[in-house]
């Protein structure tokens, strides 16, 4: 048997079910792995060893009592923008360095209900704003395949932790690609569900109309098991309602015969790394060989996604981040008056990228500019969504690259925010359209992973998972682990 920290979630579940290992042993093995490698990877901001072991003991007792759920006793890591009762939740920001939530996000409550073990909280770009985890106020998470490279972002900690064997699965969040891009760069599988599939209650908001929580793991099958637990209506989230949850694991038939796959020409952008394009096209060929029907399609408004995104997301962020005023929680820098204190607190608490986006968003919403910017952006957003819905009349799944290149060097884009924003050019149209996207590893260039992005119809995660799982049944990219040297 492989080392415990190398097990997929499915393998860990089977080992626990057979009694080959206890949850306490599995949790201890992962805590040991974190202790061994995280000083180099720097994925975790908070490791809750005591809490995790307590949950593991409870899970073992629960298992002894009878039938158990798929995640019982499975250790998971959580991106640090998701509210965890009693466990510090920093959002990668100095603003919340001391913030300990009094409540669990709905996804956390559901994981706890299912008996999962929560190892700790994972690093990310500050308030999930970034594509490299360089904007964390705390530490630079590194790509386990090459420690000089970024892990992607903003869920860089969540991706690196899985790639480095520190957790079989983690939760990330995706506002413009923050699950899919780091999954691709770290060589793991990541799912951004449809907007409204998973409750956002307790997800610290970046851009409310775009944010979505999703699983990150080694395989599509693992993602399906986590999604099963976290998906579904939530009376505490008015945008998460009215969509029954299917049986995701049951949908993994391995059969993609007759599946119609569209390949959008607009996604193969200028400046794309040739090895990346080759790997993506090869992966599509693999699916074709498995019986899928591949055709080229067009998504004509793709070029507008980036400007539209950088109006809508900062606009919403400028309001969402207004609550950090030092009055009720988080950092407070004393001042002469409320407004003086407010300026000092926000000046000290927010990093440069967060401040940049707050200013962009404030401008876009200002009197006299609203119609030209925010409102126009929402109109174009409708056109982008329409592109996809029309495409889905022809095809069942869209296959595309996730990123134009493999992971870049730490610091490569630090002087050029626009170059950083271009990282998300292939991922953020899905957030604007509210669609689900699954990334599966499909090759390497320069020793760094490449990820294939599969895009699905609204609330049709099962077809994406089936496609990704079928691909992983005949490929082994997802089984490779970095040497971590």
């Amino acid at each position, binding site marked *: 048997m492989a080392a415990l920290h190398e097990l997929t979630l499915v393998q860990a579940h089977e080992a626990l079910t057979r009694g080959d290992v206890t949850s306490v042993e599995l949790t201890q093995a992962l805590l040991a792995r974190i202790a061994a490698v995280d000083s180099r990877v720097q994925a975790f901001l908070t490791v809750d060893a005591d809490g995790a072991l307590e949950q593991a003991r409870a899970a073992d007792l629960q298992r002894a009592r009878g039938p158990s759920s798929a995640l019982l006793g499975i250790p998971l890591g959580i991106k640090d923008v998701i509210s965890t009762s009693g466990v510090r939740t920093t959002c990668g920001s100095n603003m919340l360095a001391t913030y300990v939530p009094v409540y669990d996000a709905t996804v956390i409550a559901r994981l706890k209900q299912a008996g999962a073990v929560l190892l700790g909280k994972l690093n990310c770009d500050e308030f999930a704003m970034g594509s490299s985890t360089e904007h964390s106020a705390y530490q630079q998470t590194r790509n386990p395949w090459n420690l000089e490279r970024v892990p992607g972002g903003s869920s860089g900690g969540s991706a690196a932790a899985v790639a480095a064997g520190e957790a079989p699965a983690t939760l990330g969040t995706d506002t413009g690609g923050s699950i899919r891009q780091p999954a691709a760069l770290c060589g793991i599988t990541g799912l951004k569900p449809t907007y409204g599939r998973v409750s956002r209650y307790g997800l610290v*908001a970046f851009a409310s109309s775009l944010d979505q929580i999703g699983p990150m793991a080694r395989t599509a099958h693992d993602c399906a098991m986590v999604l099963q637990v976290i998906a579904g209506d939530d009376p505490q989230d008015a945008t998460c309602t009215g969509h029954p949850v299917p049986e995701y694991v049951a949908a993994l038939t391995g059969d993609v015969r007759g599946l119609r796959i569209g390949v959008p020409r607009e996604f193969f952008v200028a400046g794309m790394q040739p090895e990346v394009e080759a790997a993506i096209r090869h992966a599509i060929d693999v699916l074709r060989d498995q019986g899928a029907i591949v055709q080229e399609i067009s998504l004509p408004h793709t070029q507008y996604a980036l400007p539209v995104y950088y109006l809508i997301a900062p606009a919403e962020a400028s309001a969402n981040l207004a*609550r950090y005023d030092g009055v009720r929680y988080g950092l407070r820098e004393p001042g002469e008056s409320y407004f003086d204190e407010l300026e000092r607190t926000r000046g000290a608490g927010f990093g440069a990228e967060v401040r940049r986006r707050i200013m962009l968003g404030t401008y876009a919403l200002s009197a006299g500019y609203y119609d030209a910017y925010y409102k126009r952006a929402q109109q174009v957003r409708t056109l982008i969504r329409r592109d996809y819905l029309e495409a889905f009349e022809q095809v069942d799944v869209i296959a595309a690259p996730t990123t134009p290149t493999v992971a870049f060097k730490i610091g490569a884009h630090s002087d050029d925010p626009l170059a950083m924003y271009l990282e998300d050019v292939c991922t953020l149209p899905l957030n604007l359209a509210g669609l689900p996207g699954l990334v599966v590893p499909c090759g390497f260039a320069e020793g760094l992973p490449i990820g294939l992005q599969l895009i699905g119809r609204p609330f049709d995660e099962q077809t994406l998972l089936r496609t990704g799982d079928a691909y992983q049944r005949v490929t082994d990219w997802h089984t490779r682990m970095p040497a971590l040297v």
Partner: protein
Amino acid sequence: MDYLVTIGLEIHAQIQTRSKMFCGCSADYAAAPPNTHVCPVCMGLPGSLPVPNRRAIELAALTGLALNCRIASDNVISRKNYFYADLPSGYQRSQYDDPLCVNGWVDIDGDQGPKRIGLTRVHIEEDTGKLTHTADGGSLVDFNRAGVPLMEIVSEPDITSPEEARRYFQKLRQILVWIGVNSGDMESGALRCDANVSVRPAGQQAYGAKVEIKNINSFRFVERALAYEIERQVTSLRAGERIVQSTRGWDEATGTTVAQRTKEFAEDYRYFPEPDIPPLRLTEAWVAERRAELPELPDARRQRFMTDYDLTPYDATVLTDERAVSDYYEQAVAAARPRGVAPKDVANWLTGELFRLLKDSGETLVVAAQRIRPEYLAEVQELLNNGVITRTSAKEAFDAAFREGRAPAQIVAERGMAVIGAGDALTDMVRQAIADNPKVVEEYRGGKVTAIKYLIGQVMKATRGQASPQAVQQALEQELTRQ
């Protein structure tokens, strides 16, 4: 030179719901210790999300219908962005482009007779927390009120005097309380008002610069604040000064308005649709349900009381001022009808004797109605109509019913208050009076018919007032002819 006055009011009314606008916390904050009716949502904790209160939207729509508004089918909640320590999210959830209710009106008594005041809009929003400034220069904030549902009711600038403004405000309060959407309690801030006022020389078409007066929480103050502000503006204009568009606060202590900020510092609220709340679609069927929920309104009921119950305009007004009193009266009338008692007589008992008793006891009718049931008004009048009791006894029985909560008929029976009108008791007393006053009897028989009055008085005295004079006279005449 004469000046024309233009006034519009913005009224903020708490919507009476059990829970807050966007979370399950109790909205009954008034008596609660600070920061006890709070949760992650109304404290603006990171990651919390709002879920709209269905009942609050229903009641706001009900208000719109009562105010003759059109209910919008597509409703958008917007974020109004500004920083303040009592605003937990850094934005207030409100409505901007698409308010719930538009284009309504309210009829009032204007300075020159009946007048219709137009309503621009009624929209829903959430209240803020409450700041208390301490002696040492610090501030304390209580979030119990944060997230309590409010309606903002905006009038057209159709009001032309402070008196009209007061009457409009009073009329709105009457309607809001009547339909049960607001407590009408202005002292606690459940109902408050901002007034916009401008003046211009007669003959000038364009409105003068608009001044907003904030923080008015009584009918008297709305009138006084506007009177003061109009006087101030007219004086300024007469002195050749320019009025600047600005916001002023009403200061109760000095009876003046005080400059707060001018338009130069006006905030840009950067409204945009709240992405956490999908647009609310209100169907025609839904609006029809609300319409079915709407009770008869005071103006309509007042008219009906005059037409159907033959009440004077004054009585009809008094009996439609408050819903509880009006409904009580309706119940009393319902009990009166089968007893052959006129609604007008019931109204007299209510506005006369009952109001006096309430004033003495300091109770509201709702409280006293636990004892003095509406049907007792009908019953006491019936006893009177049927000659069972005298007017004096009726009042006594009514007072006893009010105090003791027992039926007037029962009280009359137990205390022997029934008129001694027939039978042996009266006959005995009549005979006794005849026997005791032979001289008077002689005078009567001799043709001095008025002499009977003395005998009636004697009998009445003997009955201690418990006989009707008519019955006594009848019995005396009978007895005197018999002998």
